[in-house]
């Protein structure tokens, strides 16, 4: 294949990661930030699929093909699958944390929810909640 199609997946992956990182760096809203993290992660999907793809090959299922037919790399597919699971876990966990932070801080702005710094409220009035996770 031509040089363009060879380089394209890597260029797209790098661009996606850069754009996602820019989004995280400038985000003013945690939910937007979680979305940007998802964009960063899509970069890894594109990279892995681009690395494993073979032009003119079949999917690695040999049920109706003779063994030895050129196939795309099944290991990369396994990696992407795991990556998707990891991504789902992280997104769910981050959204839970965001919801809880909103309940307590009343804001989704990272600038207002800085750990232990002015800008957020003190935890003094809620100290009776400490040591006990919410149900």
């Amino acid at each position, binding site marked *: 294949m031509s040089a363009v199609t060879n380089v394209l997946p890597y260029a797209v*992956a790098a661009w996606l*990661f850069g754009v996602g*990182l820019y989004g*995280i*760096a*400038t*985000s003013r809203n*945690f939910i937007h*930030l979680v979305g940007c*993290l998802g964009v*960063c*992660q899509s*970069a*890894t999907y594109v*990279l*892995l699929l681009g*690395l*494993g793809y073979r032009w003119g090959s079949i999917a690695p299922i040999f049920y109706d093909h003779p063994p030895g037919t050129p196939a795309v790399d099944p*290991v*990369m597919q396994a*990696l992407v699958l*795991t*990556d998707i699971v*990891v991504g789902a*876990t*992280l997104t769910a*966990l*981050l959204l839970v*944390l*965001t919801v*809880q*932070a909103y309940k*307590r*801080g009343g804001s989704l702005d*990272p*600038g207002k*929810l*800085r*750990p*232990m*710094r*002015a800008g*957020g*409220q*003190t*935890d*003094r009035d*809620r*100290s009776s*909640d*400490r*040591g*006990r*996770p*919410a149900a």
Partner: protein
Amino acid sequence: MTFVPATLLPLTVAIPMVFCAVLLATAHLLPSRVPDILALLAALAVAILSAVIAVQAADKPLVYWFGGWEPRDGVHLGIGFSVDAASGWIAAFIGLLYALTFVFAWGFFDRTHGHFHILMLLFLAAMVGFCFTRDMFNLFVWFEVMSVAAFALTAYHLAESSLAGAINFTVVNSLAGFLMLGGIGLIYAQTGTLDFDGIAAAVAQGGRSPVVAGAFCLVAAALMIKGAIVPFQFWLADAHAVAPSPVSVIFSGSMVSLGLFGLAKVSAVVFGGSDQVQGALPALLIGLGSVTALLGGWMALLQRHLKRMLAFSTISHAGIMLTGLGALSAGGTGGMLVYVVGHGLVKGALFMIAGILLATQASIDEIALRGLGRRIWPAGIAMALAGFLLCGLPLGALDQGTRLVQGALSQQGHGIALAATAIGAALTGAAVLRAAGRIFLGLGPDPGDEAGAPSADEREKANRPLWLMLAPCCILLAVDIVLPPDLIAHALPRAVSAFTHRPETGPLGEGPGWLPWFSVAAALAGAGYGLFRKRLPPVLVRPVHVTQSAPTRALEILHSGLIGDYAAWLAVGVAVIAAVLAMV
């Protein structure tokens, strides 16, 4: 039937996982102390099994292939565990740290249906798997399991500070996971295998290749993020300061150093055959390590929130470990491995003392706690001892690790890095000793720059007797002191050779004997300056005050707590690693 030690390997991961599943299914039915007991037993079992494995692996690494998928004709399809003596002992140390943490946290989390124990056991299984695996993708999986358990544990209290800290931690470490996966994809595309040895052979044959360098850049960045190396260190202070204190013990004692342990393994074994990577490592690791050691130490000295101070101290010590790694010699790597254990023991004890203060005095603020520690004076003795060990008192495993690292650095003429290790240790020791003096002796009426540092009111449950919390802390310190230096010095050269897959060298050299004493003296001077600033003649105080105030404020602004800034610094860090690799 003969006893095959290799069959023990999967048990070290399976046992905590099985306990985890059992607890998850039954914890709501069990009486409240049963999860404590089960978790303690699981951690002890892991520690003992790992020690047995480490002894068995002294001559030759043990290898176990899951499902019997052994490599055939040089093709690695299966996933394996491979344990050399060093990895085994590190896993045994982690098991011990968990067991003592479970004792420390006895009854700490009441109405939780054992969730704390479940997450902790998952965390333990991931750490042991991370130590034992010989497969790049498996390494990534353990890395992620470790991260997810850690994220959930950080936010355990669900208070505002801990949520904000946990979000910063999660975002930065997720990015680390993505970088690592990208690097693993690249190295697989280049070499066609995920097995450490398989990749190493292919890399050694392949010659100079930008793909290998790129893969190393991404994987190294990910592990350095875990290891809290400048400029990736920001998440650590936020996360460690707000996590429940038993969790902070594990974070600082083992999670951070495991990142560097992974980096040691990957750079020595997997990328050992790449001249480009090996050429870039000394400048990269020693440079970043020295900066980290100094910056972490300085930041530690400026804190008033005890856990945040200890967190910055961990950053400083991670930097010292990295310089040992950067020496690329048996002495440096061996010193770093001993340092991981020694540092974990001492730092774990210090976080336990912070937890004791939180539980008994209901505060974690050094200035608010002034003089309040008198009633619990035994904790003060432990804190002072830990502070002296931290800054380099020539006693115990931490000191042995320090000497070996310094020996490797001085052998190769890295004078600046040598000074950075001594000064970094002195600064963190000074911070801990100053806090001990202020809290337990009531010294120092005048807080200086640390008065303006961030702090938050915290409280942890006061339902445990002092001796129950103090006992595990004292055991940690005792283990650090009684670990036999001769035995370690004797076994280390062979263990390092098996760890790095390099031929064995002679006995390992130690650094100059006066250097640890210099660190102790400097730490005492620093702590004294912090406490008695008012009583010193102004001729002494003013120049120090004038020169350090501006950079101090700049540093505190830099550690802004804003996740956006951290992401930007992360990009800078990856660019620095790539630039150093490109220059070789």
